[in-house]
């Protein structure tokens, strides 16, 4: 059983995001980078599946410049067996077709049974790479997965639907699924894991990718031109003004 986990390195949620003067991207120097949150859950799911089935290989894959080796090592420290670094200057790589096709070219000989990735990245938020990759490699795909059950030649996944609904979908292997945050409790790397990770292999590859079909022309801070009417005063005054607003302005009572 070979499971690949796609991991993206993204700015931390509390990191500052200074925009470059030409507005083409953010200034990467002052950013603190972390593993994308839903990818962390995907990794945990893969590790748990491997433990449940008592065999198999978990390979973490990340695309980007040298700094992404850090999240690959994190994956190795948590228990993945080896890593693949697809070395690319990722500034400007925003098209998931490009990302997915690069990864596909790098791993097509590997014949993974499963590819897990997070639902979407916390930076660009395209939410497509895992599905596109699965489609390119001829795998079955599913997104927003909240639970997985592996059986012979198949994987059953619980997809999250809108309005509190869920649905179980049985898929033939090989399969690429994108995983929603919250389905498990990701482990923290143990000391042994951290030390052992240093010895595990990271393969560096530079495959071809497709030509980009979409690009970013500008990055900027959102302006809001909505004018909020603030209501103040004592609690009693506020209540009176609210009732007036409900009645006369919004007309709901």
């Amino acid at each position: 059983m070979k499971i690949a986990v796609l991991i993206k390195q993204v700015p931390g949620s509390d990191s500052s995001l200074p925009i470059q003067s030409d507005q083409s991207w953010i200034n990467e120097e002052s950013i603190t980078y972390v593993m994308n949150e839903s990818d962390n859950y995907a990794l945990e799911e893969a590790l748990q599946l491997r433990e449940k089935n008592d065999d198999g290989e978990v390979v973490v894959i990340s695309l980007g410049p040298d700094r992404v080796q850090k999240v690959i090592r994190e994956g190795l420290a948590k228990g993945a067996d080896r890593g693949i670094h697809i070395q690319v200057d990722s500034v400007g790589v925003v098209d998931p077709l490009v990302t997915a096709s690069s990864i596909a070219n790098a791993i097509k000989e590997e014949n993974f049974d499963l590819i897990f990735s997070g639902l979407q990245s916390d930076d660009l938020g395209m939410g497509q790479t895992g599905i596109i990759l699965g489609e390119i490699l001829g795998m079955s795909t599913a997104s927003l997965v909240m639970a997985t059950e592996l059986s012979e030649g198949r994987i059953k996944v619980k997809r999250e639907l809108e309005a509190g609904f869920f649905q179980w979908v049985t898929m033939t292997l090989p399969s690429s699924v994108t995983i929603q945050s919250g389905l498990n409790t990701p482990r923290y790397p143990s000391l042994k894991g951290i030390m052992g990770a240093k010895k595990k292999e990271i393969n560096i590859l530079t495959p071809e990718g497709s030509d980009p079909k979409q690009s970013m022309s500008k990055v900027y801070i959102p302006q809001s031109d909505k004018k909020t009417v603030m209501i103040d005063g004592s609690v009693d005054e506020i209540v009176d003004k609210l009732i007036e607003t409900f009645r006369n302005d919004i007309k709901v009572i």
Partner: protein
Amino acid sequence: MDILVVIEDNNGKIHRMGLESISAAQSIAKNKDLSIGVLVMGANADELSNEASQYDIDEVLKLKNDILSSYSSDGYAEGIKQVIDQENPKYVLFGHTYQVRDYVPKISAKLMKPFLVDNLSMNSDGEKFIFTKQMFNAKLYSDMVAMGDGPLLISFQSAAFSADNVESGSASIRDISVTIDSSMVKTESDQPFQEEAGGMDLTAAEIIVSVGRGIGKEENIPMAQDLAKAIGGELASSRPVVDSGWLSAPHQIGSSGQSVSPQMYLALGISGAIQHVVGMKGSKNIVAINKDPEAPIFEIADYGVVGDVLDIMPKLSEALKEN
């Protein structure tokens, strides 16, 4: 046609986000002489195409196919891809629903054409279209452009366009077909189910009273229930309230809950995190009460009160009951 709108079935009626997509198409096509087609499929295709034909579009494409009568990502992706091949639209519009996120990337891969997702707007700069989306959990915006020719696959965020603005008209219905055989579908889906008993349909409510972390503790929920009753609205909440077990999942509004656009949304003690906002920003009137003047909710609120919800709620309920 130029613009193909793919709508989703909501029990025989066009899903609200499908109407928003039609509204988007109409807005984009205005003054540009672009033709609009609406693709309708699935078990309720007949009802849906009747409804769609009452809008100001050029034609309704009705696709009836056994394999496509229920959703599968392989089926829908292949089916719609063939429709695109047949009809050759420049732009294919979708609402950014969970279902769309599941299968449209596959179409993108099949065609090797871009899927521009979750857009807030699509504006022309004279030469080409600029797609604006949020990034970094809505902290920043980005403008995206497509490279090469279409078709471009495009999805819009909930309430980026308004379903109320759809213009009526009349359109003809054309039957179309695709060739799919069952071996193409690699998945088998069970019936959708809810995890709690008793579903709540907040999408139908005119007034929603919604509580967030600011409610403090479970013991204060009855206060909110009281208010919802007094004002004639439904009770809802943000995710943390459900996660803490103070309300059950059907109450949840947000990216992983329900999406609503009531006449009035009363946000009590809700900070306004993007995951919640995405589910309610289509509300016609948003009234927010929060004790933090910097809370992001005030950026999208129409009316705001900086105050303690625990002080205001009971008094408001009382005043409403008196009236």
